């Protein structure tokens, strides 16, 4: 029979009602708290006992302190004189136990208790949440503005989409956590002003589900949404970074370093290790090379001219959009074209507007002609523009139901060539 077990902690640091209930219940079953960390709490088997657990918070305590502060130790001494044994501490959380059912409670003034909790939350937890929201809001806005500038390219990249959705998910997660805790603080303040006890933070318990859901979606997204090798590599890299960071923190704390050193050294060491291991990591983190891309339309198919230089500028695909830019040069003639397949109709108009603006801005001849309906119907397109330049270039902008083509040729396409183009590129 095991004497030690580790329980995953899914309780907010400031949901002291729930923490106390759980510890008391475990003690009655014979499992007594020995040590706590952020995720896992360690329990040791002993005699089942009716034990009171009570919690308070110390504002100058921190996970980055090598040792308990003087304030923590004074508090512990005072509590010990009243029969309260300090069991464990993590960050600002201080846990005490007492086997005497008649012992004076740790806190006998609800107003003071509330003010202490509020002070701790406003100094530590709330700023942390705000920083995360600001950080990921900036990331989201950066990727969001890139989406508005290059919708086809962004929406066709599984990796970029994952980052964009990941940022949105984390933003929502921390906004929910922040909102629920601020609401509880306000409600608790009003309740205490009315002379009643601080109510449990039930909102935060529900909002933890959002946190777990976001974490699960992040892991599933890495494993199944983006390229498997890439996703798995990022997941492994994240775990390695966390292990290095925690390991370095454990070492600096063991060396009795200052709070500043404990805060910055693990972060810098982790960054340094990741940067220095880039030559090894880079091949793993680069999405797997796709096999040679099949050109939807080649110069040879249009003119019979062999390619002298053929390359794909961008080819990417996601469940939302497939996007490719192709260039084929034969020595005499050349074609360049962008072909976008929109699998999700929600984004059709956004991509159409962006591509049409690009067409208008970059066509050789500024006065183009909207083709008459006869040719548009012949091609089977919903929308068609063509611009032919006196210099001999031919630019086509064709929209089908879920495909958009922007094609440039440096000669005027013949009717036969138009027919080949339509046959090969019409969805």
């Amino acid at each position, binding site marked *: 029979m095991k004497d030690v077990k580790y329980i995953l902690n899914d309780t907010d640091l400031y949901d002291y009602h729930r923490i106390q209930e759980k510890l008391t219940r475990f003690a009655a079953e014979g499992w007594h708290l020995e040590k706590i960390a952020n995720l896992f709490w360690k329990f040791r088997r002993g005699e089942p006992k009716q034990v009171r657990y009570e919690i308070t918070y110390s504002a100058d305590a921190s996970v980055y302190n090598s040792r308990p502060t003087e304030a923590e130790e004074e508090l512990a001494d005072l509590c010990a004189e009243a029969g309260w044994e300090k069991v464990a501490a993590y960050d600002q959380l201080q846990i005490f136990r007492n086997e005497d059912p008649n012992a*004076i409670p*740790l806190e006998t003034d609800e107003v003071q208790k509330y003010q*202490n909790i509020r002070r701790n939350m406003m100094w530590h937890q709330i700023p942390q949440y705000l920083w995360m929201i600001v950080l990921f809001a900036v990331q989201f806005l950066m990727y969001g503005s890139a989406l508005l500038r290059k919708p086809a390219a962004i929406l066709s990249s599984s990796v970029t989409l994952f980052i964009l959705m990941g940022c949105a998910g984390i933003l929502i997660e921390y906004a929910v956590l922040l909102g629920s805790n601020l609401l509880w603080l306000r409600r608790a303040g009003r309740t205490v002003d009315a002379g009643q006890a601080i109510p449990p933070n039930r909102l935060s318990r529900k909002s933890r589900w959002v946190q777990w859901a976001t974490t699960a979606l992040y892991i599933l997204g890495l494993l199944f949404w983006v390229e498997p090798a890439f996703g798995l590599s990022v997941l492994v890299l994240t775990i390695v970074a966390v292990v290095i960071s925690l390991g370095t923190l454990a070492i600096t704390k063991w060396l009795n370093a200052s709070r500043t050193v404990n805060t910055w050294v693990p972060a810098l060491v982790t960054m340094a290790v990741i940067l220095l291991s880039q030559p090894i990591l880079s091949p793993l983190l680069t999405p797997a090379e796709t096999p040679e891309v099949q050109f939807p339309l080649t110069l040879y198919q249009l003119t019979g001219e062999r390619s002298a230089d053929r390359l794909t500028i961008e080819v990417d695909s996601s469940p939302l959009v497939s996007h490719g830019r192709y260039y084929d040069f034969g020595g005499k003639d050349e074609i360049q074209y962008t072909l976008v397949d929109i699998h999700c109709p929600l984004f059709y108009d956004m991509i159409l507007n962006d591509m049409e603006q690009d067409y208008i801005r970059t066509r050789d001849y500024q006065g183009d002609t909207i083709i008459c309906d006869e040719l548009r119907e012949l091609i089977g397109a919903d929308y068609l523009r063509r611009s032919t330049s006196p210099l001999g270039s031919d630019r086509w902008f064709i929209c089908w139901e879920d495909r958009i083509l922007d094609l440039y040729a440096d000669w005027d396409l013949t009717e036969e060539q138009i027919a080949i183009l339509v046959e090969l590129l019409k969805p």
Partner: protein
Amino acid sequence: MPREKFQALTEQMFYILLCLKDECCGTDIMTRVETLTGGRVRVGPGTLYNLLEQFAEADFICQTRVNGRRRSYILTDRGRSVLREEYDRIRIQAQDYVQLMGEEETS
């Protein structure tokens, strides 16, 4: 401003300050308050720790001795003044009660 914060003292605040008319360390305060009030008012160690910190910050008490981690405190002049004001407030309240409720109710 600390004075506004402690404008009306709670019972626990009142008795802690009262006990500190003489030098006293944190641990003994809990015992003295309970003895003085016959067990009616009890101050938990967490509450006592926070209040001592706030009283020191508001200059109601000052530290007299440090013996290891045991700190002793005593009332300052400002603290005595605050305590006196609170006593006057309670006394006036009691007088108002007697005046309104009559001798019969208060006997």
